[in-house]
């Protein structure tokens, strides 16, 4: 797309129709094409990188908060109508539980499914385990560094706090344990009627640990008795994209499409700029391009490890 900047004008502008449009003032020193291509490419690369970082840390947070808002409303409605899912095979992306730690002022709606894309909305419940609140071990994946950092709160001083789990079957209070890292003892299987929620997220080490969350860590919340019955009929197996630190390559076609549209939109804006002038073209084109760029970056993050 950068080539178009210096390319030849394709559409002749009618001389009198748009008197406001002025020709670009000739620069004092003519810049050779090669140099122009290199420097512009580098600038675009920088913009893309900065956008990516922005989206992961800032814009993604906005997006995740919005998704949580929506999911909370949806789940609240389902709880009120007693239609919240309690078992069987649940459509990925459906809210299944509300986890909240009142002592931390933290609360998240957990959705079904743990593939990278689903975790953008908030913590996800691994589909081959029982639902939170049900007897057995339930596994919840969540991001700790990007997209609102939903499980970051579990890594700092959450041990000993109460975790309230609200599902279609009722409300239970779990006790959060310490962060379990590689080498720590695995807890024993919960007793009959007991339940455990294992929250799985990632953490980095050292000063820049927050920027490099590469180790999978676990936080167990336990309930000794009184868990709800788990209805049968859960999945027995999940795809590789739903395991820890996996990426979801099924997004490739959608990503290619969105990048293609983004490229087309950019070209369209450039063509329009020559014809209708920069202000008009960008006024119309910028929202489109920003939206497409946002979408493309969202889709790109599907390719990143899901716990990041």
């Amino acid at each position, binding site marked *: 797309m950068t080539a178009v900047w210096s390319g030849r004008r394709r559409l002749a502008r009618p001389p009198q129709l748009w008197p406001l449009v002025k020709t670009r003032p000739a620069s004092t020193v003519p810049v050779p094409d090669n140099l122009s291509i290199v420097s512009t490419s580098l600038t675009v690369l920088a913009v893309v990188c900065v956008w990516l970082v922005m989206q992961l840390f800032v814009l993604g947070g906005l997006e995740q908060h919005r998704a949580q808002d929506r999911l909370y409303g949806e789940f609240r409605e389902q709880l009120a109508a007693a239609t919240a899912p309690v078992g069987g095979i649940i459509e990925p992306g459906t809210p299944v539980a509300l986890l909240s730690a009142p002592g931390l002022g933290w609360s998240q709606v957990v959705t079904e499914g743990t593939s990278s894309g689903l975790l953008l909305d908030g913590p996800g419940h691994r589909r081959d385990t029982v639902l939170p609140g049900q007897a057995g071990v339930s*596994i919840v994946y969540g991001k700790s560094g990007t997209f609102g950092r939903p499980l970051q709160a579990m890594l700092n001083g959450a041990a000993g706090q109460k975790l309230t789990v609200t599902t279609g079957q009722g409300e239970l209070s779990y006790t959060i344990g310490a962060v379990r890292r590689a080498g720590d003892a695995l807890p024993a299987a919960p007793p009959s009627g007991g339940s455990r929620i294992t929250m799985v997220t990632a953490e980095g080490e050292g000063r820049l640990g927050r920027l490099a*969350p*590469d180790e*999978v860590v676990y936080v167990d919340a336990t309930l000794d008795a009184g868990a709800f019955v788990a209805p049968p009929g*859960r999945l027995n197996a999940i795809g590789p994209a739903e395991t820890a*630190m996996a990426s979801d390559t099924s997004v490739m076609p959608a990503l290619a499409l969105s990048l293609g549209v983004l490229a087309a939109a950019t070209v369209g804006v450039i063509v329009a700029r020559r014809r209708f002038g920069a202000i008009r073209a960008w006024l119309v084109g910028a929202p489109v391009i920003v939206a497409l760029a946002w979408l493309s970056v969202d889709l790109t993050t599907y390719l990143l490890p899901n716990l990041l």
Partner: protein
Amino acid sequence: MSAIVRPRELASLVLAGLLVVLMVTTDGGSASAVGPASGGEGAFSKTRTITRVLAATPAPEETSPSPTDPTDDDPTAEPTDDPTDDTPQDVVDSRQFTLTVDHTLNLRGRERVKIDWSGAHPSGARAANPYGENGLNQEYPVVIMQCRGIDDPSLPEAQRLKPETCWTSTRQQRSQSTDAVLGVWRHDLKATKADRELKSGLTDLPKECVDTKSDATHTTPFVAANGKVYAACSADTMPPEAAVGAALPPAEVSAYSDADGKGSVNFEVRSSAENESLGCSDKVPCSIVAVPIMGISCYDDNYDCRREGRFEAGSSNFANEGVVPAVSPLYWWSASNWDNRVSVPLTFGLPPDACAVLDKRPPTAFYGSELMNQASLQWAPAYCLNQQRFKFQHNRMGDDPAFVLVENGQAPAAFVSGAREAESTTERIGYAPTAVTGFAVGFTIDEPGNAGERQQLNLNARLIAKLLTQSYTGSSRGQQHPGMEANPMSLNVDPEFNALNPGLDRIQREAAATVLSLSESSDVISSLTSYLNADPEAKQFIKGARDPWGMVVNPSYKGLKLPVSEFPLRDTFVPTSGLECYQQNPAPYFSQLAAPVNSITKIASALLDAWPNVQTKCDRASASDPFKVGRIDRQGVGTRFMLGIVSLGDADRYGLRTASLQTASSVGPSSPFIDGSGRTFVAPTTSSISAAVKLAKDKGSRSAFQMTQDMLRKQPAAYPGTMIVYTTAKIRGLDKEDAAKVSAFIKIATSEGQVPGSGNGKLPGGFLPIVKTGATAKLWASAQRVATLVAAQKEAAAKPEATKGAPKPAPAAPAAAPVDAPQDDAPAAAAGEGAATATDDIVATSAQSSGAAGALFPVLIALALLAGLGGPATRVVHLWRNR
């Protein structure tokens, strides 16, 4: 080669001919089928004299009193001005009425019993639909109803049956109000004085019933099982089950007797689960009451009371014209009609939830095949009511998922009816043959011309393939489908079907373009589709070859690979239509026609109600509401045509008719034919199922018997829908307690559970008993072997797989499914992972990290800095150079 084949062909022809002859001669028994449901289950037969007595007209010759003693009214109690006392009486009609019922014991809800009678007055004015109020405009029918109570004068009043405890679906059938002169019941010879009044029966009518003072009114209230009395004088004062559009269609029938006074009907009984007001159950005895209408006996010379029918015997009454009230079923309750009744005492089996109510122990759930439905319904009480045994529960589920539950240790045992690939598992699983049954194509089809229900139907594999592949177009909307313009609209207009089943109507219907099938995966569908696949005609048809009449497979199904365990809905064609409704609701038309359901039981009840699941009915609440598309109406009796895939157990329980399937043919696949000659059709009977089972080959305890359709085709007498249901359970690594239960179950099921009968723990109809001798001997032996293996749990371990640890013992609670957790994620975490769940050993959390995750941000930020600075820098360098 050909020299060898020819004698064989000859032999098969002779055999086929013999079979056809056999089928013709034994016709009538095809109302379904296997198992001895008819014998020893309380078959009932009774003969009695039924009469019509009229007070003698001027010159009486014979003055014989009524041979049946009027029970309730004593002639001396009659008022002196009553003419009955001294008027001579004349028995104008006396017949020997014989009623037989094939089984009456341990009935379940909606079970149908076959009632035959002879010696009734020939009927006239036959109604197209004899059920409920639609049957009222007939003459001399036999009214058959279900009543609470037993017809035994020695019983206390509350347990005796009377017209007030007989179920009718409408008010019109029990309470009548008419112009005073037409109140023929008031002239009844046997009526009590009170019944001869202008107002009789329940006289204290509630306010909502409007009753004209001058009219003759008789109200027969309905007394519900809980004692509540429904006045039954208007639609609002009927019991709730009699509401308009009630969940179940009327069962009571005004049945037609032919010119010889013979007739038969399949009568559906209702338990308290279906009809709470009637309330028949294992505790509340009920009866079937048959009232042969002879005409009311009259004590005076009232013209209307003494009339004979105006329709000829054997005539039809399509126009629903009025009939002579004195000989109509309207006044079945009138004393002289009621006195002619024959009542058949019934007993009901335990309700399906008996075990849940009567046994508080936790159940041991067996998952799987729906073919076992009727058997487990009867078996369960024999376990839960015996404290020495465990509480058996059968949870219906597809065969595949049920088997997976067993493999994963989440269920102790599963019912499946075929071998499962045991690859990628370290488990050892035993297959114990538990029942021999199968599937059938059930049908509800009426003969044209109001001649009753069709008893026998022949289907070949190609016809079933045509139905399943949605190759009939259903209607002009379906004919828009590209490539199917020349196809017949429905099965009954297909020349192939008509060649095999002559004499049926040719009215095209959407319901006849499809066979109601399963949407779920099931071994029944695998078995059915392998039957199609093994048949050259069906196979070539699906491959795309035209049938001899030019019909072609629906292009969406062309080349479909069979067998499949779940029949796909592939056609997405949306027809255009000028109708507003279809424009508002565009949908794939052929999927609406097929509309498969998720359980075989639902198919059976749809057939019972003749209510196809075709979803093309347009409906809206009012003219301003949008249209919606829904299930079409129940089919009218007389023009019913519906097919469905049912299990033999259900077919027998509900008295569904089942089609004979083609097993052999000497006719080339592409040559046209005009009748079924050269083809062998086999109905599901004890002998045809035995013939199939005889072919099964034992493949060892860890696999199902081998019984492929290719093997069955070699034996033309074998029913192709035969299926063996196995109890599958681990023979290594199963919890000790569960192992003992499963082993006991297999032993009980193959001994006590194979005794035919309707009682608890017995084998219902539709199943072939597995016994020590005969065709099922090898199944029996295999079951005993597997029972021992399951009990021992000593099978040598399979070679453990590289990726898995040692086999895990089953978790204590099967519900608490996946064992422990996070390490499951870790592809690298292998060692000791399985042990962690089994013991209390301290096992460390394994490390898992992602290089990409760690590197991403540093790389991104570095790249952004580099590129962000590099871009301007190149320009600056350039400017500096050119300075």
